[in-house]
Every structure is written in C-alpha cells, then in structure tokens.
C-alpha cells in the first residue's frame, strides 16, 4: 500500500466499509461526487446504501437516497438482511429515500425544458433532513427517459456542480459501458473519484473485485482488491501487502502432545509460526491440529478452524473420539469453525473471507484444513498462499496448515512450494509392514530450534495422541507389532543372559570355595612341618649342650688324674 504523502489531506467522508476506507486513506472525497461504476449485479447499490446507512448511524451524516431504479420498499427489503433498517432511519429523519420513476413512454417532449424538477426534489429532500450525503442510483436511467442527450449532459454537469456547491458527499452509480467506464460516459463529469466494481467469473467461480480508478488529490491503493458481499455486508480487503515487516514472534506454544513437545528443543513451537502438517489421508492430520487447538483453548487462547473438507460438528465428533472436547470450547467462544467448500468461492474470495474473519475473531491460532483443497492455477495459488501466510504472519497468529501429499514421493512439487514458506513441517506417514499400518510422525524442519530427527510412532486413543519410542536397532526402524515382537525378543534374550550370568557366578563361587579348602589343608601341613622343625632344632640344641657338659666333665676328670 502506498503511503499517504500529500501533506494537506483532502477532507474525506468515511464510508464505514471495512477495508475501503483504508485503501483510500479515509473514504470518499467529502463534499464532492464520486462515481461508482460496474456491470449489473456488482454491488453498486449495496455499496451506495452502506455508505448512506453508515453515514447516518455511525458518522452523524444524514443522507438522501435518490433511486432511479428500485422503489423505496424494494431497497429496504434488499438490505434488511444486512441488518439495515432503512424504514427506521427514514422515520428517525436520518435518511430520505426518493424513488424517481423514469418511464420513457410517459413523457412527450416539445421545446425547451430542463431538469429543474430533479434539482428541486433533491434539494427538498436534502433540506428536509439536513443531509450531508447523497446517492443517485443509477442516474443514467434518465437517458432512457429523455430523448435529448445533449440537454441531459448539460443538466448532469449542472447537477454535479450543484452537489459540489452544496458540499454534499455524493455517490453516483453508473452501469458499465462498452469501451468506457459507464454507458453514458459519466466519468467525464465526475472527475474527483471513480471506483470500478467488477464481478469476474473464472472456472465457474465468481470473484468480486474493486479498483480505485482515479482519486484526484489523494493517494490510494491502485490494485484490484477482492471484496465480499455477504451477511455482514460489504468488506473490501487490501490483501496484497508485500512487506515482510512482521515482528519475529517469541514465546512458545505447547502442542498439547507431550511427546511432540519433547521432540522440539525449546519444548514447543514458536508463537506465530506457520506449521505445515503433511500426510496422506487418514494419517491423523486433522486430529493433530485438533489437539493443538484444544491445547490452545485450554490456555484460554482463541482458535479459528477453516475447514474445507469437513463440517464443524463432524470435526467436533471426530475429536471427541480421541478425548478432545472441542464442543465446550465452541460454547465458551474460544473456538470457531469456518467451514466452506473450496469450490464455493475463488481463491481471492477465500482470502478475503479469511481476512475478515481474522480481523473479527482475532484468533491466536488458526487451522487451515487442508490447504491442498484450495484449487486454482498454479501461479495464482502460490500467490494466494503467500498472501495468506503474510496475512497470518502480520497478525502474529500461529497457523497450522494441513496438506495431503498427492503422490508417493517424499516431497511433491506442491508441498515444496508451500513448505519453503513454512516455519515448521511435521510429516505424518502411515508405515505399512507385516500386514498392518502404523502411524508415524517426524519433524522435517523447525526454524530456529533444534529438533529430534527421529521417526516416532504415535497412537490415537481415547486419551488423545501419544507418542511412543520407535524401535531403532540393527534391524532398522521397527514399528507396530514388529516393534513389539522385537522388544519381546530382546526382553527374552536379556533374561537368558541374566540366568547365564547367575550360573557362572555360582560356578566361580564354588571353585573359590574349593580353593579355600585346599588352601586350609596346605596351611595345616605347613604348620605340622614347622612344629617338627622346631622340635628337631630343640633336640639339636639340647644335645650340643649335653655334649658340652660331658666334655667339661671329661676335662675336669682328666685334670684330676694329672
């Protein structure tokens, strides 16, 4: 969107139409006529009516609706469904409706005349309620009622001049013509602001678009903006913002699945990240998303689910089967479903609706289930998804996109296109082996955090989604029954090893006991030998001593004999 650069800004009259006042930086030029043109059924009359009703109810500016086509009661009936009470406003003196019947056959012309009657009537109506706003819908009808176009043109020029002189903010509607904006070239007279409404059909899908063709003296968004007409009235959505100026969100949100949180180093996903959950049908994408939604709601955060394949009640029922009570969250106002068939609207309209819903409901978490349901030409789809992600990112909303992998390859082209825009990618896969399917899950990427590289098996039961460790060993990754069998085998082997160890321990103990016994015997015979040695040594000593005594006695005896 361009910036508002003109310093002294043109005074503007807000239309109160969501989005339109943003892209025109304030609304229509105040005190001047603006032209709204478009083919039949584009919403010109509704645009004009909304402008008047909002003026009367929200901006304190009464208005005059001069209808050249529909009668007052038809007008009132047409917009009653939008909650506009035209009759009430008329009664309150905030709105005047003047139906100007123009029927060609009734009027003959002879000589000079002018449309003073129209001026008088408009002036009368304006003065009667002190109107600040005027709608002329569709003034071109006059060309059918009068035969002199030159005179009509002069009168229209005078009329628009008169509107300016009176300082009335006016909408003049005009039917789209061949080669020019309106059939009678009204754009020549209304030079201040021209808005073109368009209703295009591509592939049997209609998309309404609005473009500000010209806005003298004011900056304005120049693109074609999709707009919606539904039970909430008109909303225009400038969704082509191209800036990557959103703040990097901080803070973590838990997925509500303990095992999954544990696979992410910080213990959850970053708030405001876009999470892609891919997997074939029946892999549990929706339920994974439902788990995260339920966790968010339990934290008191608001969640919005855009369901393209299931209705809200169906999702609630399915989630109940894994123990998630989404219905209570819907009742508490924290959760809302927006279910619509993807083919119901064009991409732009889907985006526009989403935009409006995001701004109205202000969710913290949204789920788009599945994003692959949105169909369109590849280039358009990519662009639309980009804008969708932008839309979500700029609001700091955490988003879960589910997608179906269409082929069997690891990464198909579609996914690749989307996945690069995503902050995190969880892949769900059903592994088939040994006649059974096992649900597995792994985190392909998670920007800004380290995460487990393991393939994890998960179970969906009435207790919710629970992750269990997959068997990873020499035989590869085993899941399901194969994992159970392998684990049993390992348990048996471990038991076997335990028995074996105990047996060997017993052997050793026995051998040691035997050795101890032998050791005791040897020690006993050693003792015996020591005793004997001591005895022998004692004998020797006593014999030596006795010999000495004998020798001394002999010596003594010999001395005596001498």
């Amino acid at each position, binding site marked *: 969107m361009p910036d508002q650069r003109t310093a002294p800004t043109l005074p503007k009259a807000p239309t109160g139409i969501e989005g339109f006042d943003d892209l025109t930086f304030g609304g229509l030029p105040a005190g001047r006529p603006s032209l709204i043109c478009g083919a039949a059924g584009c919403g010109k009359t509704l645009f004009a009516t909304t402008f008047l009703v909002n003026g009367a109810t929200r901006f304190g500016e009464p208005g005059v609706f001069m209808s050249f086509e529909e009668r007052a009661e038809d007008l009132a009936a047409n917009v009653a469904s939008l909650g506009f009470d035209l009759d009430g406003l008329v009664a309150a003196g905030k709105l005047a409706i003047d139906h100007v019947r123009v029927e060609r056959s009734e*009027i003959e012309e002879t000589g000079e005349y002018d449309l003073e009657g129209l001026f*008088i009537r408009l002036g009368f109506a304006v003065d009667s309620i002190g109107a600040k706003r005027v709608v002329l819908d569709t003034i071109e009808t006059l060309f059918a009622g*009068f035969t002199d176009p030159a005179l009509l043109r002069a009168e229209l020029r005078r009329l628009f001049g008169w509107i300016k002189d009176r300082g009335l903010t006016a909408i003049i509607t005009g039917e789209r013509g061949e080669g020019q904006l309106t059939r009678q070239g009204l754009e020549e007279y209304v030079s201040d602001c021209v808005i073109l409404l368009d209703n295009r059909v591509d592939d049997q899908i209609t998309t309404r678009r609005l473009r500000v063709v010209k806005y003298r003296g004011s900056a304005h968004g120049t693109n074609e903006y999709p707009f919606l007409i539904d039970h909430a009235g008109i909303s225009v959505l400038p969704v082509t913002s191209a800036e990557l100026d959103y703040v990097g969100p901080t803070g973590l949100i838990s997925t509500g699945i303990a095992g999954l949180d544990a696979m992410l180093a910080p213990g959850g996903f970053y708030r405001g990240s876009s999470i892609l959950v891919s997997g074939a049908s029946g892999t549990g994408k929706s339920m994974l998303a439902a788990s995260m939604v339920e966790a968010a709601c339990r934290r008191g955060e608001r969640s919005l689910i855009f369901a393209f394949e299931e209705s809200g009640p169906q999702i609630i029922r399915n989630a109940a089967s894994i123990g998630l009570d989404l219905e209570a969250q819907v009742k508490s106002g924290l959760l809302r479903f927006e279910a619509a068939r993807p083919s119901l609207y064009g991409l732009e309209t889907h985006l526009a609706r989403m935009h409006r819903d995001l701004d109205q409901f202000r969710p913290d978490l949204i789920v788009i289930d599945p994003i692959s349901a949105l169909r369109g030409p590849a280039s358009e789809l990519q662009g639309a998804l980009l804008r969708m992600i932008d839309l979500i990112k700029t609001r700091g909303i955490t988003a879960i996109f589910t997608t179906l992998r269409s082929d069997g390859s690891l990464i198909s082209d579609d996914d690749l296109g989307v996945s690069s825009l995503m902050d995190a990618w969880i892949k769900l896969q059903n592994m088939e082996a040994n006649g059974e399917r096992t649900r597995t899950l792994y985190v392909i990427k998670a920007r800004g955090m380290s995460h487990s590289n393991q393939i994890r098996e998960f179970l969906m039961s009435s207790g919710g989604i629970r992750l269990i460790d997959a068997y990873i060993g020499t035989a590869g990754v085993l899941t399901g029954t194969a994992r159970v069998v392998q684990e049993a085998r390992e348990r048996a082997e471990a038991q076997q090893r335990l028995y074996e160890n105990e047996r060997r321990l017993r052997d050793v103990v026995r051998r040691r006991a035997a050795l101890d016994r032998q050791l005791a015997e040897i020690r006993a015979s050693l003792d015996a030998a020591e005793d004997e040695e001591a005895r022998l040594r004692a004998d020797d000593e006593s014999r030596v001593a006795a010999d000495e005594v004998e020798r001394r006695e002999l010596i003594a005896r010999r001395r005596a004999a001498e």
Partner: protein
Amino acid sequence: MSGSAELSDLPDRYRFRLFVAGTAPRSLRAVEAVRRVCETHLAGRYELEIVDIYQQPDLAERDGILAAPILLKLAPHPERRIAGDLLDAERILRGLNIQPADETQR
C-alpha cells in the same frame, strides 16, 4: 390524484396540471402556451392548475416531476405528460390526444 374523482365522472372535461420552475422566461412561455391552447380548443371544459416547483416541491415529488416545464393531463385517462416550453400547439394537441375544437378556425 386528489380532487380528480368528481371530475373523472365527466368524460369531456379536461384537467391539467402544469409544473413550472419559478418565473423564468421559459416558465412564462409555457404557461402562456398552455392557456392559449386550452382556450382555443377546450374553452369552458378544462381546468388548469399551475404549480411552481420551487414553491411546492412536495407536489413535484408526489407527481414524480423531473423536467420543467412539464404539462400533465390528469383527465380524461390515460394520463399524459409533455415536457418543454410547449410552443408547438399541434404537438401538444397530438401529445394530449385532444381533437382540435374547430378545424375551420385554423
């Protein structure tokens, strides 16, 4: 139309309402032209009401008046309208489906 009920009972009685915008020359010309035509061709059996849309905008709104001057033939039915300054008497007669009073006069 108010007041037209009793008059519509008389089949040959004409009832006109002429809307003009103020006292512009064009308005005066139109008033004069209508008077002349009526006096010439419908003397004594017509009723002409002249409304200035500036003075009575509500009447203009009621009758759905856009152009001025404009002459409405209210009776006899069908209602007809002629816009313009009404200088061409013959077109007025044709437009209002009135038989000229006396061919010899003209």
